[in-house]
């Protein structure tokens, strides 16, 4: 059973986060190992395994990037272990500019307004990429979807870089 089947959801990129969480909680209760405390050793072991699979499935589907990677994996495209590089000059130039902007944030890490505005801009660009990704996945344009996923990975990295600046300001 794949992660989507586990939650009884179609293998689509668009997902209702609140609905997913509800389904997760319901299944979590059904599968909780404590419920099998008086069962056989085999039942207990299965409950632990199911519970672990459920957690893994939820973590994967919850995050748009991991969800997209998973959908493409189901379609036979492994993006998690690839070591390919990308050369899109415009995209990479924009990444360089982002990195410079984050360097500047580091110089004035107490500038919360600047950090906030960086988050907002990154969020907007990330959303745009996710919309693009959604269209490609829905249209079965796997190669174009893979390119969008690769770009999304850079956006994730930028987000964690901004988070690091924010943490150092506390």
């Amino acid at each position, binding site marked *: 059973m794949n992660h989507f089947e586990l939650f009884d959801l179609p293998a689509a990129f668009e997902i209702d986060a609140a609905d997913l969480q509800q389904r997760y909680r319901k299944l979590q209760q059904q599968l909780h190992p404590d419920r099998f405390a008086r069962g056989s050793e085999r039942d207990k072991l299965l409950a632990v395994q199911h519970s672990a699979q459920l957690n893994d499935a939820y973590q994967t589907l919850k995050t748009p990037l991991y969800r997209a990677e998973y959908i493409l994996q189901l379609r036979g495209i492994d993006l998690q272990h*690839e*070591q*390919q590089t990308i*050369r899109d000059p415009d995209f990479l130039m924009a990444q*360089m500019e982002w990195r410079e902007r984050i360097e500047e944030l580091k110089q004035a890490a107490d500038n919360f307004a600047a950090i906030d505005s960086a988050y907002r801009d990154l969020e907007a660009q990330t959303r745009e990429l996710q919309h693009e990704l959604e269209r490609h996945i829905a249209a079965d344009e796997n190669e174009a979807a893979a390119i969008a996923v*690769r770009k999304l*990975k850079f956006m994730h*990295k930028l987000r964690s870089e901004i988070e690091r600046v924010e943490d150092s300001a506390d």
Partner: protein
Amino acid sequence: MAYSEKVIDHYENPRNVGGFDKNDPSIATGMVGAPACGDVMKLQLKVNAQGIIEDAKFKTYGCGSAIASSSLVTEWVKGKSLEEAGQLKNTQIAEELALPPVKIHCSILAEDAIKAAIEDYKSRHAG
């Protein structure tokens, strides 16, 4: 994870950091990124009329191994012809810096940056 001494040396004292004017016809620019880690690398070569690399500069946003890999290749390619530089393999970089398997992609990034720069040069000097 422990970095090798050579990685630390290049990371703490990176050689040839910076850039050239990318519109100068003698300058070749290679930009590459690794989705696996989100690292980005810009490598620029200054090529003379004989096709020899006179100077090289880089700007890399990434981990210590990515910075060390790009710093190392800027040293290696100086004095080489574009053709010689194009034969550089990531395994040589990884070996020189003693990169662990999880950091091999940093050396791939540096190799691809040189290739991208050479392609940029050829595309601008075609015909």
